[in-house]
């Protein structure tokens, strides 16, 4: 412990199942090690290390289910956990929507998500990386606040019908905000990867320092509709709200932006600009993800929006059965296609517009139109004749990702991007969008 090898996980879970007397039993184990360093005011503030695993036992009699967990692994403790789950199942109310556990599944070989070098990160290595970032802040005469976290994890799943799945992974996430000492400028950069070798703390820190230095003495523009160039870190926080809303059941029930009169939905309709293609692919080398979900459903390559047409929605196993379609699990990562243009080239092609480097505090305003509000943050610039002319004060926006993707002008090259709000990763291109709706100005820097 904490990271079990596949054979050891299989042996342990088989032993747990051998104690089961329920109609069905599903057991899973997961855990790992994480380490982090947090810094602010050009100095380390907090840091830590956490290690642990947990075993979950789900026992079912008919449509009655009980769940228990334990993190002690002697035989007596394991049997006690199974007995408790069974007792609970007998006491639990029936759930008419309960679905039986899945039978054995065939999973295509998973992409490589576990990188030994990331798993081997030490306290000293983390401190050295943070030291780089602090050095760049000192040289640039700005104040840095940032966060570095790495983790190595595993999970395994087995049930009484013979299903077994096992996966491992590593992650490293870094983000940094640099602010000018007079408080008039701020810049942000972030990155998240499976492989520590892909993370360039120095480059990210320099990018943040550059934005901080360029964003001081911002001018106020009138709120209104503007052409915007959204950096991927800005685009992801709006798009992740679109992804999360692609649920078949709520659309069918008439309580989604995808609902239409008479119980119909927009599935199959062209909803956004034909440049928009969004899919998920666990084997994409740029952002590999797991090959099964928490229930053991295989994750496959799925096209969600193709040439602007809504192609697929998520179907829970219950809703899929009710509707007579295949269950489609929520993927671990989305990929939006783009072109080959760089951010700089998108800016070059902009006659007049606003460069938005980050959006913040995104909240739903109206689920019927997927309207969201939020603000620009940490570097917002006016573009004229293809050049960044000057920094502008931050705006509040009220915009729907559906309206935004209908107003799409151009896409750049997708980048692996970490959401500054939810923390999830996605492949997001820089985007140029016309008529983006800014509703007020903010004094925040």
């Amino acid at each position: 412990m904490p990271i079990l090898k596949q054979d050891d996980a299989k042996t342990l879970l088989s032993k747990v199942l051998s104690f089961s007397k329920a109609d069905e039993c599903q057991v899973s184990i997961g855990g790992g090690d994480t380490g982090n360093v947090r810094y602010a005011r050009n100095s380390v503030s907090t840091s830590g290390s956490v290690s642990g695993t947990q075993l979950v036992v789900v026992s079912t009699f008919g449509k009655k289910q009980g769940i228990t967990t334990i993190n002690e692994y002697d035989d007596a403790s394991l049997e006690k956990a199974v007995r408790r789950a069974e007792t609970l199942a007998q006491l639990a109310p029936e759930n008419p929507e309960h679905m039986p556990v899945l039978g054995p599944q065939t999973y295509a070989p998973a992409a490589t998500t576990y990188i030994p070098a990331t798993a081997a990160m030490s306290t000293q290595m983390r401190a050295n990386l943070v030291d780089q970032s602090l050095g760049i802040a000192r040289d640039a005469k700005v104040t840095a606040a940032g966060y570095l976290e790495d983790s190595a994890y595993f999970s395994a799943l087995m049930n009484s019908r013979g299903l077994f799945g096992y996966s491992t992974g590593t992650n490293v996430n870094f983000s940094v905000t640099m602010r000018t000492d007079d408080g008039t400028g701020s810049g942000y950069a972030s990155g998240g990867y499976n492989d520590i070798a892909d993370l360039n703390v120095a480059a990210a820190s320099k990018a943040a320092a550059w934005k901080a230095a360029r964003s001081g003495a911002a001018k106020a523009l009138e709120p209104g509709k503007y052409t915007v160039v959204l950096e991927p870190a800005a685009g992801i926080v709006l798009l992740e709200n679109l992804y999360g809303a692609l649920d078949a059941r709520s659309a069918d029930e008439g309580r989604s932006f995808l609902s239409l009169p008479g119980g119909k939905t927009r599935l199959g309709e062209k909803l956004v600009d034909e440049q928009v293609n969004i899919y998920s692919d666990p084997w994409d080398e740029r952002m590999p993800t797991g090959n099964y979900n928490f229930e053991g459903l295989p994750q496959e390559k799925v096209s969600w929006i193709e040439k602007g047409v809504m192609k697929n929605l998520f179907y829970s196993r219950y809703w899929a059965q009710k509707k007579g379609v295949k269950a489609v699990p929520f993927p671990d990562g989305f990929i939006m296609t783009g072109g080959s243009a760089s951010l700089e080239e998108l800016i070059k092609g902009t006659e007049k517009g606003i460069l938005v480097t980050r959006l913040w505090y995104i909240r739903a305003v109206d689920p019927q139109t997927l309207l969201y509000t939020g603000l620009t943050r940490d570097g917002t610039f006016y573009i004229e004749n293809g050049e960044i002319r000057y920094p502008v004060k931050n705006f509040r926006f009220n915009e729907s990702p559906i309206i935004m993707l209908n107003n799409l002008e151009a896409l750049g090259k997708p980048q692996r991007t970490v959401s500054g709000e939810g923390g999830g990763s996605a492949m997001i291109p820089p985007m140029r969008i016309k008529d983006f709706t800014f509703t007020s100005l903010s004094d925040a820097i």
Partner: protein
Amino acid sequence: MGIGGAMLSRIPVLGSPVPPGMPLETVDVALKKKMADVALNAARSKGASYADVRIGRYRNQFVITREDKVLNTVDTESYGIGIRVIAGGAWGFAATDKMDNDGIARAAELAVLIAKENARLQKEPVQLAAQKGFGEVSWKTPIEKNGFEVPIKEKAELLLAVNAAAMKGGASFVDSSLFLVNEQKYFASTDGSYIDQDIHRIWPTFTVTKTDDKTGKFETRDALSAPRGMGYEYLSPSGSGKINGVTALYRDRYDMLEDARLAAGQATAKHAAKSVEAGKYDLVLDPTNLWLTIHESCGHPTELDRVLGYEANFAGTSFLTLDKWESKKFNYGSPLVNMVADKTQKGSLGAVGYDDEGVEAKEWELIRGGVLVNYQAIRDQAHIIGLKASQGCCYSQSWRDVQFQRMPNVSLRPGKAPLSPAEMISKVEKGIYIVGDGSYSIDQQRYNFQFSGQLFFEIKNGKIAGMLKDVAYQANTQEFWNSCAAICDERDYRLGGTFFDGKGQPEQVNSVSHGAATARFNGINVINTARKI
């Protein structure tokens, strides 16, 4: 940052499911003291100049239903130890669930190792405000009925009855939930404190949805309950403290059945409500709405860690900079605005005996007569604002996470002159009366905000003229609080709050209450949020 997004997706994943209905097992205090001493001694022996230990058993229970179905009953429990040290002048932290002497000592040693490694990146050594040790003491939320001891069946039946009431009232769908929290936490430090606390919280809530097949539109109305630092007695309506107006409003007891029945009618009525005309209005904000505005526009900007820049990379900084406080005349709001911070208010989410670094709970002013007079600080920040002692704002969501500065209850004091909401409304010519919290967003320095609500009523010439929809109000914090023209008296004072105030990296949640009486704000910008896709 602020309060978490979608409610159900933000259930804190602090622990692992354990059997619902399992008796609440507490760990023997003598054993916890022994474990704490193992950690403190190990940390000291490795060179820590200060150490504290939190041994926590954190228990949550969720009962989740929709219409006539109980979707899930989940009990989570998490047990472990978090050890924080100062070594070489820097903080270090390590946590483990290996609760034998060896596992605890190893975690303490790792915390010291991390502190020493980080000390080379430290500009100035950590400076802790002095704190006397309390010896062996304890504190418990003063609950009347422990929710964990109420049978799961009884809770499920209540929620199903709530759902039935909503469906009978015309709802198309209803989702309801009951969340219970119990933090059994033991704190010990090298200052000589051994503090055992038993904290309880409860939150019953629902969302009623009314769809219209002909138009394809849908409207919702969320519960007007508040998460509270109470036991199951919150769900025993007594009739006392209830406020009847455009809808039923509740103080210290919540009638969930009644609220669901009313919600169904109101969700239906929203379909026919007039879409608001954008412009300036005088707003009358019920405490079910105003608590969230207080949270975002006063609670967060007075957090000293934000003021100093510790949250610059995530939640943000604050417009309430130290120079404004030092001036002793920064005009945050109108003279009517008095904001108080506390960790002591009975029935509130923030109430504890001691914070998570062994400081006794207290109350202090933040805004007095509209002027900024103080912040929220912990032990390693107190000296920065000239305090000799911490204000007791340190909190961690679990044993796994390091404690840091979190928001105490922050409340608007009620008005001194007798004034009821009805009397307040009667004096408004052109206004909107807003009940319940809805969409919310504020910038990273807490200047520009936008809030919505659950129910909106047009006020014309002192009278409620009908229901509105598509309403959101936008303002600048300082302008908004300076437009505060009247506050109802203490008869109308109620608590709102959240389980999911988010801040920090890695992000942690904090539970916090905000008290207020209905208040009036003049000339606030209202936008129309209706769009077509």
